[in-house]
């Protein structure tokens, strides 16, 4: 502290901009590739064209319709998966009987690749929204169950003894000890469920092709060979994923402030 020079940052690029160096270079490379015609393939579209498509998609309202459809499905599936997963995970964690009876079946089912469910789901629910929502609630369900279960089972023995000495009843045991102690793990489950659900949203739109959605926009782009539209879709998907992660991290940090050490340093 006494020596100001110690903390002086000699780097030419300010700290908060450093993460942008690589993307900026890549964009520059792209621009140069178009400018000097390193490739004449129609796969290489100019930056400006992607921008124009973005503006056009936004203006015409197509973006809004696609994004709304995708996000609505994402949210519904996420809510079902997280709600169901939380309840299931708590039951699995608290009841040895439930674990013995249902646990082995659950652990078998979770080994099945998520995408292997698609044929079944499409037979059961068709190719519409129901099948997609079912698919992505399944995607959110598994990480939620596993993390909730894990969190409940790893309540520290020291605190369990403290609760025994304090004569907690069953209700207090669950709400004052088990759930708060498991909350970091449960929130990790919510975070993962969010990521998985968004990935599954895109997956569902690709594999159950029908209706509207940001994934369908990209499929249209591919089929019509409009690379600018595909790239636009990639950017939107990336931005949504980024925002969801950011949101989840904010919520987690807020709710888990009691841990103290988990707060990331800014420098």
């Amino acid at each position, binding site marked *: 502290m006494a020596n100001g020079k110690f903390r002086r940052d000699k780097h030419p690029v300010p700290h908060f901009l450093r993460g942008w160096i690589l993307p900026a270079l890549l964009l520059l490379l792209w621009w140069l590739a178009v400018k000097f015609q390193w490739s004449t393939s129609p796969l290489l579209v100019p930056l400006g064209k992607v921008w124009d498509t973005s503006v056009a998609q936004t203006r015409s309202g197509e973006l809004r319709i696609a994004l709304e459809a995708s996000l609505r499905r994402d949210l519904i599936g996420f809510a079902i998966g997280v709600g169901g997963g939380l309840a299931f995970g708590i039951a699995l964690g608290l009841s040895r009987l439930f674990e013995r009876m249902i646990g082995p079946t659950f652990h078998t089912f979770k080994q099945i690749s998520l995408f292997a469910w698609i044929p079944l789901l499409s037979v059961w629910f068709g190719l519409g929204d129901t099948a997609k929502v079912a698919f992505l609630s399944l995607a959110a369900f598994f990480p939620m169950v596993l993390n909730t279960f894990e969190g409940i089972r790893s309540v520290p*023995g*020291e*605190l369990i*003894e*403290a609760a*025994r*000495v*304090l*004569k*907690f*009843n069953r209700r*207090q045991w669950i709400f*004052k*000890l088990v759930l*708060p*102690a498991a*909350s970091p793990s449960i929130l990790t489950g919510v975070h993962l469920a969010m990521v998985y659900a968004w990935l599954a949203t895109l997956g569902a739109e690709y594999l159950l092709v029908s209706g509207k959605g940001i994934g369908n926009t990209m499929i249209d782009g591919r089929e019509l060979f409009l690379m600018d539209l595909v790239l636009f879709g990639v950017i939107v998907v990336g931005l949504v994923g980024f925002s969801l992660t950011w949101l989840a991290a904010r919520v987690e940090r807020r709710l888990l402030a*009691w*841990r*103290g*050490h988990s707060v990331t340093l800014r420098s």
Partner: protein
Amino acid sequence: MAQAGTLEIEHLSKSYPLKDGELAVLADLTLTIKPGEFVSIVGSSGCGKSTLLRLIVGLEEDYQGQVLLDGERIVGTSLQRGIVFQEHRLFPWLTAAENIELGLLNAELTPGQKRLVVREHIALVGLEGFEKSYPHQLSGGMAQRVAIARALVGKPEILLLDEPFGALDALTRAYLQEELQRIWQAEGITMILVTHDVEEAIYLGDKVVVMEPRPGRIRRIVPVALAHPRERTGPAFAEIKQLVLQEFAGSSSASLAEPPLRPQLSETAQFPQWQFAI
């Protein structure tokens, strides 16, 4: 103020099952503790002092003999018996005040009364101004004071202390020993302190129970007939310390002669305990 209880331990034995036979942890222990008395228990590692406390508090069962509180056999945990562990064991998601209030969860008090009692106990352990701090924001000594308040808030008849200051630095430890003595005098309850620190045992105890290991049993009970507050450097204090250390050394050298490799006690397997080498 809580009614202090009489604790009677009669021919108490405890052993843990091992693959081949049993490991005796406590053997034929008899000890009576009067209401309001402060008893210190010292002994080297593995002499079963912590097991003794866990039996009294009710976290361990399956023993031979009797452990009676006011003539009644102890079964399971009870709010009549509070305990402070070596680690504070506060709930990290609750503030200091909320942690203390855990001791009143099942008390028949109105929320207003609970707040008042919690405030009294925060004052008792000298933590005014830290009510809203989370455990990670408190120093080790402060967290341990919260743990003491949490154990006392339900007005137990007996407070058990399992090396409560073992993980603290020397200055904080000396300060908290004085605090504990003040609290003991103010509350008038029975306290049993398990410690490795002979000076701490003599400074606080009405009597010092010296235990020896394998199997854990009482070697000698040394009365401390000194007035409080005690002068750690006085000649009478030094004399008692010498007496206790002699007993201690006697049992330690005997135990050192035993082969160092022995089956791990499940007592230590259950939760890590940081113990001082002697």
